[in-house]
């Protein structure tokens, strides 16, 4: 009995475990060795020279400092703006609140490259925003290319949703009775905030802030385009070291630094999420105030006006880029309405800008999307069944050591940026058929990126199944497979669909790893958008991006219908 189950376990686990080991862990370890001059492919000699050379380069030092700084700056802005937003969403009721909340989520689910083009369409040089401002004042309001404020603005816009969605749970979990008691005892608002609300909010706020920090710190597409030579994150720096200068050992050394910083943040994140019980669902009933009622005192009215201003401003920077993409896709350079940007996607002439006919890029993207959808979901299913097999068959001890190891291995890809993933794959397999067959390498990279998300969804819906159902079914004589097909599978289907859509959406919007691995004559939609932005063909780029907007928003609408959208790692 034991042997049979162990056999099953090995079979179930061998695929996902082997996949992670071969394509993730070993390449990553290889990078670490490469940083010290040890490589499987070239002459090797242990040395600190690479690390020293990379870290003593003044530009690397500066960009490391700058990267941390911009990530912190982004985090602070997001926390301040997002906390106010979630407070209002929780404590007031008004028309279109659900709609507004969903709207605030949109930027986060969009691929960075789409956010970028939306940003350029709205605040770029030729945008109506800057043009109107210029006609009013004579100079443009904001220059997003090669400026600090442009990058911060884009990052803030991208990350506000994380704070709003997570701290909303925090506000809801605050015990209202405590506040009422404090009020009756004469506590000031500040006292209530600092003594009751803040301590309750802090853990989840910190977790959310760490997430924002890690997203901003590893930002690639936005900084690659907006930063130019002036501003580069470590991610961009590694990309250009490895991809344009072919300095693999230098890039590996820099990657090591980046991975270490990411690991510190992730460990802190995991520590905090397990230490404090983060509120997962709404626990307390909160008395919501109506937004408007007749005969309001002036002070209250003033507060409402402030809230309104907040929504107009934040809503503005949240909505504008999305509407900007769609608007830019249907306006010609002269400012008239046109569909010519879409027509250009069928036009062969655009090939000279992006190196491949757009239709091929769309096909490539769809191919990867479907491939990753199948691969990531399948691997996640196998992993969960392999790990949980003993909970369904009674009388067997859990193998916790393996479980812990797997747990770490599964969560680890989240701490590794997409460029690091692509670079580690490339550095180990660049002479093998895996890289020769570029499609394979990109597929693997996308699967690695999507896998943790798919795994999370599957494992959540797997653990929601009552284990007694399985044992009852088996004790009644049904085989394990029959039990799976008849009982568990129907219950798992929503989870599987969500995992599939999640993987699909992640793959179709992935830019960093794809552009790293894609050879000169091979690309997907995001790579095409990047090429078009680099040549400032904003119209066709926007129409390309609109396709992605529609696909991602549709995917996430279905996900929201089927289950809860999880922004947490």
């Amino acid at each position, binding site marked *: 009995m034991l042997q049979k189950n162990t056999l099953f376990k090995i079979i179930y686990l061998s695929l996902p475990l082997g996949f992670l080991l071969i394509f993730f862990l070993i390449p990553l370890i290889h990078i670490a060795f490469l940083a010290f001059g040890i490589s499987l492919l070239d002459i090797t000699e242990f040395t600190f020279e690479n690390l020293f050379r990379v870290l003593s380069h003044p530009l690397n030092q500066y960009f490391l400092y700058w990267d941390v700084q911009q990530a912190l700056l982004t985090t*602070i802005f997001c926390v301040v703006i997002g906390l106010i937003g979630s407070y209002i969403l929780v404590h007031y009721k008004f028309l279109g609140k659900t709609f507004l909340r969903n709207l605030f989520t949109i930027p986060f689910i969009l691929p960075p490259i789409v956010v970028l083009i939306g940003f350029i369409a709205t605040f770029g040089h030729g945008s109506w925003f800057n043009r109107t401002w210029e006609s009013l004042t004579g100079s443009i309001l904001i220059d997003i290319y090669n400026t600090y404020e442009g990058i911060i603005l884009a990052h803030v816009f991208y990350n506000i949703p994380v704070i709003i969605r997570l701290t909303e749970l925090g506000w809801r979990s605050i015990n209202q009775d405590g506040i009422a008691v404090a009020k009756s005892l004469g506590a000031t608002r500040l006292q209530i905030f600092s003594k009751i609300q803040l301590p309750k909010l802090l853990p989840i706020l910190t977790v959310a802030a760490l997430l924002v920090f890690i997203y901003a710190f590893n930002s690639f597409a936005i900084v690659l385009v907006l930063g130019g030579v002036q501003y580069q994150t470590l991610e961009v720096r590694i990309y250009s070291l490895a991809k344009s200068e072919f300095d693999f050992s230098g890039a590996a050394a820099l990657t090591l630094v980046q991975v270490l910083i990411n690991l510190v943040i992730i460990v802190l994140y995991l520590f905090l999420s397990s230490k404090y019980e983060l509120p997962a669902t709404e626990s307390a009933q909160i008395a919501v105030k109506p937004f408007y009622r007749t005969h309001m005192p002036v002070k209250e009215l003033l507060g409402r006006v402030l809230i309104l201003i907040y929504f107009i401003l934040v809503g503005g920077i949240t909505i504008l880029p999305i509407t900007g993409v769609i608007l830019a896709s249907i306006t010609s350079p002269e400012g008239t309405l046109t569909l010519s940007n879409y027509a250009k996607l069928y036009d062969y002439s655009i090939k*000279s*800008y992006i190196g491949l006919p757009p239709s091929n890029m769309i096909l490539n993207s769809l191919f990867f999307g479907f*491939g990753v959808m199948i691969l990531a979901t*399948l691997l996640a299913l196998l992993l969960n069944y392999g790990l949980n097999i003993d909970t369904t068959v009674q009388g067997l001890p859990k193998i916790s050591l393996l479980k812990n190891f797997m747990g770490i291995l599964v969560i680890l890809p989240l701490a590794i940026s997409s460029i690091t993933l692509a670079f580690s794959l490339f550095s180990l397999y660049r002479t093998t058929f895996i890289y*020769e067959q570029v499609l394979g390498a990109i597929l693997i990279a996308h699967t690695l990126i999507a896998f943790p998300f798919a795994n999370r969804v599957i494992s959540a819906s797997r653990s929601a199944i009552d284990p007694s159902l399985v044992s009852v079914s088996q004790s009644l004589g049904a085989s394990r497979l029959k039990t799976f097909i008849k009982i568990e599978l129907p219950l798992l289907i929503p989870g599987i669909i969500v995992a599939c859509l999640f993987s699909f959406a992640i793959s179709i919007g992935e830019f960093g790893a794809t552009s790293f691995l894609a*050879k*000169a004559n*091979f690309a997907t939609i995001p790579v095409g958008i990047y090429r078009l932005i*680099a040549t400032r063909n904003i119209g066709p780029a926007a129409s390309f991006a609109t396709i992605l907007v529609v696909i991602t928003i549709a995917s996430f609408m279905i996900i929201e219908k089927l289950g809860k959208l999880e922004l947490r790692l």
Partner: protein
Amino acid sequence: MMEGKKMGKIQPLLILFLILTCIIGSITINFSSASMNENIDLNMTNTSELVIYTYDSLLADPYYDIEGNFSKVSGISKENIQIVRLSDANEIVIRLLQEKDQPEADIVIGIDNALIHLIDNKSEVLEVISPQNVNEIDSNLIQNLDAEQYLLPYDFGIISLYYQNSIINSQSYPELSNLTLDTLLTSPLISMLIVENPKFSSPGLGFLLWTIAIYGDPEINFTGLLSRDWRDWWSLAKDDILITKSWGDAFDIFFNPEEEKPIMVSYGTSPAYGFCQWQDNTTSAVLTHENNQENAWLQIEGIGLVRDAPNKANAEAFINWFLSEELQSDLPEHQWMYPANINANVSTCFTQASIHPENVTRLNDLITPSMLSEYLTQWQDEWEQVVVQRTIPGYEYMFTTLGLLLLTIPILIRRNKKKQL
């Protein structure tokens, strides 16, 4: 029960089968999708009879069908000629060095008289070539590119500032008629200028060498024309110029009126592009006039045979064809550069609109090949350090500290709680 047990045994097999079908399925989709892509890499390793590395804009505007035309001459089918267009010339050198032990390419096109110095030992990656028509190639160019003939010149032209004369002309900007790098810096023109990144782009590198040759480099005791420091020019210019990654990117931004960048680093032959094709004379080229002479950096681009090339015979035939009078006569109006073959035809519209390298003072004579091979990478690296504006942290610094403080609050609170307990 019996049946159940049986099923239990079959079950892992079934799952394994499912997995296998998925893998096979995905591989087939993979291949079918690959065949949908006309220029996919698949056949590169199998059936290619000729692989060429070049940059994206070689003979690209108007498009010249290199594969088709060579196929007619050589009989090699068009599908088996692979032209890999890399983003810019720097990448060709890097790829070449990278694949030193296992060459994938047969031919490299686009390594110029500056980039050649990034290769320490040419005999390791290239082979000496002397096609039959080598005597038709301008011997001066051969001497200036590579006397050993690891690379043979196929075209040449001077780097210049290329501008739209409807916006920029001597009425609107009088400094244009006697432009120097100094006056460029103080003129409003500087904020309209697009420069390619010399780390990635060969005209960008040419422009960097132009500034170095004029101002000199005191750190290596190189006086240049004016015995000053090239770094000063760049550190004053960096806030105003737009730096792009490749010449192609710069060219597209140049023609986008919204960007308001009507002047860029390009070639003395660039005005011929509009003039020969559409009789459009709205673009011109200008050089700088230090020491009362017109100064320019000459770029000579070369073609080379990769050492241990997989398809050596085909490659040699290609090089012979590429340097022939026939192709070289098509070169000016597709590549917009002067052909290296002295017998090649150059149309009058081309010569009319372009600046010929012979009419200017060539800065190349100031920077010797040995200086290039010693300092080129260092210059590229230093350029980046000069251009990146490393501001001493000001108000942002306060935010950084504030952020770090915010992150420590949870720890402080926990300590407080412990104390209270």
